[in-house]
Structure formats: structure tokens, C-alpha cells
């Protein structure tokens, strides 16, 4: 698949009208990262339910259509899922979500930035909770 095939109506719709865009207060998880090459920025905030599920999730950021649409679609996908689900999330899942088989090395980072942010946030939260339970 050529890289410009990614610019389909669906992606552009998510880019122009991002779902779950904004900040979430209060939140239990906050994570952000940027892609130094592109200047893409993604921040994700999550409210965690009592049974360790993603009760609510929002993203905030700026960047190219691929990074922003990917983040928006990912928040929709993640909502209601157990935190453990995030651990299983892979590059292939993101490509499938975007409806493409490959993006090439230059643009794949844009697509995967939000997954990285989500994983870092959730791993940090699970790690911190683990420490809490060990300490108590």
C-alpha cells in the first residue's frame, strides 16, 4: 500500500473531528510524549475504574493527520477495556485500526506515538500500584 492511501476519508474525518479530544479531570493516569522528528505531541489522560478498566480516556495533542487520527481511534478502542489489554496492544493492532498494512519507516512513528504514550502511562500506573500493594 502506498503511503498516501492512508489519507482516506475515515482518517481525515478523525483528524478533522477528533473523538475523545481534550483533558480529563480528575484522572488516574497521565502520560505524554513527542516525536522529535515531526514535532507530533500526544498527551493521554485516563480515569481507571475500581475493577482496573479504562473507564474514560481523553487525548490532547497536535501533529500530523496520522498521529492525531491514530490517537483518536485508539482512545475509542481503549475505552472500557481492562488495563491489562494495553499490554497486549501491538503495532499490527494499530495498523489494522488505521485500515492499512504498512506505513513505511518514516511515518510509522506518527501512527505508533499514541500507543507508546498509552503503554507508558498504563505500565507506570500498574507498576506504581504493584509497588503500593507490595509496600502495604
Amino acid at each position, binding site marked *: 500500500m502506498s503511503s*498516501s492511501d492512508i*489519507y482516506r476519508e475515515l482518517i481525515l474525518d478523525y483528524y478533522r473531528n477528533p473523538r475523545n479530544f481534550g483533558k480529563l479531570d480528575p484522572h488516574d493516569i497521565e502520560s505524554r510524549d513527542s516525536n522529535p*522528528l515531526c*514535532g*507530533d505531541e500526544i498527551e493521554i489522560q485516563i480515569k481507571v475504574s475500581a475493577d482496573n478498566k479504562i473507564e474514560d480516556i481523553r487525548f490532547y495533542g497536535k501533529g500530523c493527520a496520522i498521529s492525531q487520527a491514530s490517537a483518536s481511534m485508539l482512545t475509542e478502542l481503549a475505552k472500557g477495556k481492562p488495563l491489562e489489554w494495553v499490554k497486549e496492544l501491538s503495532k499490527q493492532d494499530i495498523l489494522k485500526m488505521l485500515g492499512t498494512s504498512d506505513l513505511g519507516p518514516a511515518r510509522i512513528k506518527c501512527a505508533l506515538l499514541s500507543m507508546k504514550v498509552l503503554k507508558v502511562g498504563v505500565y507506570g500506573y500498574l507498576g506504581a500500584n504493584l509497588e503500593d500493594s507490595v509496600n502495604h
Partner: protein
Amino acid sequence: MLKSQSLEVERIRADFPILKRRVHGKKLVYLDNAATTQKPRSVIKAISDYYMKHNANPHRGVHQLSIEATEAFDESRRRIGRFIGATAFEEVIFTRGATESLNLVRFGWGVPHVKEGDLIVLTIMEHHSNIVPWQLLAAEKGARIEFVRITEDGKLDEEQFEELMSESPALVAFTQCSNVLGTINDVSKLCSLAKRSGATTVVDAAQSVPHMPVDVQKMDCDFLVFSGHKMLGPMGIGILYGRRSKLQEMQPFQSGGDMIKEVHTSGARWNDLPYKFEAGTQNVEGALGLSAAIDYLDSLGMDKVRQHEEDLTAYALERMEGAPGITVYGPKKASERGGVVSFNLGDIHPHDIASILDEEGVAVRSGHHCAQPLIESLGIAAATRASFYVYNSREDVDALMSALAKARRIFCI
């Protein structure tokens, strides 16, 4: 129409094997020359000839090959020096590129000379490589940095520059040509103002030496840096020009073989200029490749190279002015800028534009162009940049414009 008034583009293109290749099934339209340029056959041949016929470690052996390598290396230094008007062999130092040249000045001159409370003056249009070494130097020494602003039309605020000179800065570093705006600074004037205030001057010529006649004597700068790969030469070779009196008062940068005269268990004595700053076995193939690149540019004539790029830039600016949704940054007149056109198209992110352009075989750069302070001062997140060289034609600009029209269609603007 491939013939410009100044250069025979079609003939030039035949010298660059890579320009024949196709990208995504389309003719390659290479407009990323401010990042790096393509290489003519003569440069590639100079490098392969060196390895096929003359390779040896220069300055070390007395055998025939070593003598040949030494002579070729020395001759390339003279050749490169003549190209920028350097009068002395000793004033031309080989480095890995403009970035290493700037770091050499930071360690060799900056560390022993810049003191606590000193002022370092930069401009907001500098490439990161002409900012970060000075930030680290300032942090180490407790010096402070002031950035000269740009005016609304993308030119250096010379009034502010003059004001800052009244504060007697220790060091003033500025670009001759912005890699984003294309703005050509009046370096002779800036050097003269800086010199009068007692400052040491560093000129980043990475975007000027490849594109226009440059003369370090006329400019009267203390240091000037550029890279080989941005001017048809190979990667990994660059130049630091330094005024002899400045180079003499400097400490070595890297240390090891070749930069010493004598080494004893009690200490060492440094080699003479320029070798004092060239530790270890040097990039001889790079020096020969750069020398061949300069032969090629001189055969075209740097005045004509400049004229050609000015013509192309004027054409690109004219086409972009007539196209909906395009914002161009930098001076309005092509005569005031190098062959670099940075722009945004509507609210489309430059990386999306670059992807769509790539699909059409058009290679451009997108992002912050290693000039984040400038990009921030323009109030934007990123820009797309087309940059020209000797093998580009108006047809390349036309290809760029039709690819941009495709981007406009995809994003419905």
C-alpha cells in the same frame, strides 16, 4: 523548458546518475538540497579513484602511496581554501562537517576565552548546530546568550544587533543564509560591527558556500564553517576556516595522533597549523571528493549558480503566491534569499504534505528543520521546505505545485 538563463540544466542533470532513478514509479524531483545534495559522477569517481589507485595513510609513510595520498590531501586543502578566499594553507581545517567545526570553535576557542558574565550573541534564525554548542559553553562558563530577532519580513533585526554590540559580546555567531527562511544576511556588515565591539565572529556558511560566491577575506570573519555534503561533496567532511591569529591562540580540540609534534611520557607539544586540530587519520576520500565537488561548481561558476537559484526561487515564489492556501515564510524578494522556500498549505501538517509529495516522486523536507527557536518565533509548529540546486529546473517547481494541488484535493481545502 529545461534551459535557465544561467545554467544548462539538462547537461548538468546528465552528470548526476541518481537523478535518473524513479521513486514510486515517478520521476525523482529532488527538492531537499538544503538537507543534502546529490553527487555528480566526477565526485564519485574522485573517491573511487583514491581507493583504486592511491590509498595510504597520509603524513606517515615514506613509501610512494603515502606520498601520493599526502600530496592529494594537501592539494585538496589548497583547492578548498582558494574557493572561499582563504589565503593561507594553515587556515583551512578539515572536520566531519559544519557541526563539528562549530564544536571545534566551542572547545578550542570558547572554553579558554569565554568567561563568567560574558555575552554571546546569536540570531533566532540559527540552525540548532549554531545554538546548542553555545548554550553548553554558556552553561559551563556562566555566560549569557542573547538572540537577535527577525523583522516581519523575515530579515535580521540589524538595529537590535547593533544595540547588542554596544554590550561588547565575547562571541557573535550567525548564519549567512537561513536554512528555513532563505534570508541572506549582510555578513560583511555584521562582522564589521562585531569586530568593532571586540567580539570574535563565527559565520555558519553551510547554506551559503554551496550556493553563492563567498570570500572570507572580504567578509573579514574570524571563523567560518560549512559541510561538504551540502555542496555536491561526500558526507563526513567539512571545513573550519579560521583566521590564523585566532587559531594560534586556541587549544587543541581532539587529541591523539597527527596533532602532535612530540610526545614524551612527561607531556606533548602540539603540531603546527592546520594539523594541530586534526587528530587521527583524516577523511582523505572526503577531502578529495569535496575538492572534486568544488571543481565541478567552479566549472559552472558560482555567480551563475547563484543566478540560477535566484531565478528558480523567483519562479517558485510567483507560483506559490498565485496558489490558494499557501503561506510562504521569509523575504518576499528572491534577490534577498537563497534557494530555499519554506511554506505551509492551509492547516495540513507538513508531514502529511511531504508524504503526499513523496508519492508523486517529489522529495521535500518537513518539520522544524533543526531551527525550533525560529519555527516557534514564527508561531507555527512546522513547515514544508523545498530547496533548489544546480540540477533543478522550473519543471521541478511545476511538479511540486501539481503535487501540492493533489494534497489540497485530498484534504479538501
